[in-house]
């Protein structure tokens, strides 16, 4: 990949980021509704309100506020959280690893699940298992992650599956003085398999809730490309050579059908990341999604602002990575 292309894509992300910052500003300060009234409880005196107004610079003109806001963002200052009285950036960075591990696990589950469904569907092309897989994918896609999460909780409670945790990240019985918040990676490196097991078990249902809709999309796209690949000459050749149908689908065709799936999966990954907001809340999972809902409930304006921007930066970064990997996989797109 040429350095020029890379630079161009990076530069294109800057106006998008700026636009995001502008919209967050507009939404939180200009939309009808007073941010101070939103932050403060009933019982506050006019003096309290005035004090907060000055503290957050809201007594200045909108233009002045905007300049201060962009200046702070450019220096990485997100302000101080009102509810937790800590630096917003520190708070977010502390929780971010939790969400990153959850999203990557969800992605892995989606790829395994969707990949298996696609291969089975392509193997049984035109027969009843394919129709069954299509129906299943339609169902998995129609139900959003939020409802999958609640359905899983319902199953666990009704079937009394007490071994499957439905809240938290790690069992209270385990003490683990983590250096980083990447429990999964750290427990693996320190060979703490009790921690690893507990973290994986707690992660299973939230990750699965996030994974199912994406798995459905992967299975649809991959199956279409697999079926297309099955008509190609090299597959005919493999057939003439007498390879089994399973081997042809899973080894020869799969390899060539992956490119469109990878691209699409990357784009859909942003939706998965966005889904953590509710899924983490439902499973009391301590990541930035859960934190975002709490910030809204606590009317913690600086924290809300920081979190919305963090999600936006993650989305832009993922899209950038997808564009680049696509260019890497497909030389024709490099100069597009």
């Amino acid at each position, binding site marked *: 990949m040429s350095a020029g292309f890379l630079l161009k894509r990076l530069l294109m992300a800057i*106006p*998008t980021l700026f*636009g*995001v910052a502008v*919209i967050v500003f507009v*939404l*939180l300060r200009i*939309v*009808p*509704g007073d*941010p101070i009234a*939103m932050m403060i409880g009933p019982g506050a005196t006019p003096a309290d309100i005035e004090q907060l107004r000055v503290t957050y610079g809201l007594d200045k003109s909108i233009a002045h506020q905007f300049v201060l806001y962009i200046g702070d963002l450019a220096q990485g200052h997100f302000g101080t959280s009102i509810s937790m009285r800590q630096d917003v950036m520190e708070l977010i960075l502390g929780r971010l690893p939790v969400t990153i591990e959850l999203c990557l696990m969800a992605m892995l589950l989606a790829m395994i699940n969707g990949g298996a469904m696609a291969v089975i569907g392509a193997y049984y092309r035109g027969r009843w298992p394919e129709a069954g897989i299509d129906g299943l994918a*339609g*169902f998995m896609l*129609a*139900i*959003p992650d*939020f*409802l999958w999460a*609640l*359905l899983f*909780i*319902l199953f666990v*409670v*009704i079937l009394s599956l007490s071994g499957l945790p439905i809240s938290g990240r790690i069992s209270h019985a385990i003490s683990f003085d983590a250096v980083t918040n990447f429990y999964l990676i750290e427990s693996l490196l320190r060979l703490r398999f009790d921690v690893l097991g507990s973290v994986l078990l707690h992660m299973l249902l939230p990750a699965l809730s996030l994974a199912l809709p994406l798995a459905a999309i992967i299975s649809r796209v991959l199956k279409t490309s697999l079926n297309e690949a099955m008509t190609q000459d090299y597959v005919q050749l493999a057939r003439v050579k007498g390879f089994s149908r399973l081997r042809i689908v899973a080894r020869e065709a799969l390899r060539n059908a992956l490119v469109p799936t990878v691209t699409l999966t990357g784009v859909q990954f942003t939706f998965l*990341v*966005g*889904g953590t*907001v*509710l899924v983490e*809340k*439902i499973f009391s999972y301590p990541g930035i*999604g859960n934190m*975002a*809902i709490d910030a*809204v*409930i606590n*009317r913690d304006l600086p924290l*809300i602002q920081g*979190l*919305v921007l963090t*999600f*936006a930066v993650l*989305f*832009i970064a993922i*899209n950038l990575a997808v564009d680049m990997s696509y260019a890497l996989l497909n030389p024709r797109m490099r100069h597009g």
Partner: protein
Amino acid sequence: MAELAAARPVWRQAASNWRIRIGGGFLLFLVAVALLAPWIAPHDPIDQDLLMQYLPPVWAEKGEAGFIFGTDNLGRDILSRLIYGARIALIVSVCAALAAGLIGTTLGLLAGYVGGWVDQAISRLVEIWMAFPAVLLSIVLVAVMGTGLHSVIIAIAVIDWTRFCRVVRAETMAQKAQDYVASAVTIGLPSRRILIREILPNVMPLLLVLLTLEMGIAVIVEAILSYVGLSLSSEFPTWGSMIGAGRQYVNQAPWLMVLPIMAVIATVLALNALGDGLKDTLDPVMRK
């Protein structure tokens, strides 16, 4: 046979599509339930009776005959709340889908037809909008605007107009390349007239499909907002707030959550089926 099928009026084809029958049938049922709520609900949906807390469904051991699907943490009848909840779900989904459709279609038509800097500006705006986590943004918006029916509808419309804008823009560009638009330009029709009287009717089938699908999304977003406690005040029973209460007391009373979740899922599946069925029937390419 192909000509025969094409000659049948669209509504006849629509009526024979099983997806439209199932999806549309369920939707009609829901509309009837919402309209007749005061007559068919066995109890007042906000009537609390602390002596009747956590009653299980009637077929369970401690069920009461008067409360078919049991009562919630405040002793309110679950079936009645479910029936009244259909009203909110329908109002929000129809209004929010129409509002998002109006914004998105207007911008999409403009971007696709005018092109040039207008298209670039609108496309850029869509791109920036897509960089936001939709659910979080709607939650924040409602928190800023204050809870209430209009806030929920505005929040969904402000978040989801991009879906319409992208599709309508692409379709308008395709329509613009057709001969009928070139003829309209040649005989000197004003642009506004071409857009509204010539192109819009041709985009309409697609728009109808998008509106149906958007209604399904709006039902989910409303449920999410009520789940978080940000949709309507507690006087109004909503499916999302029922789910929220159910999550809180899931260990004591798992049945609190079952019915509202099923209601949301059934509505969303019905709207998806209707949308897919309409797509099959209305899309000329698919029809061939």
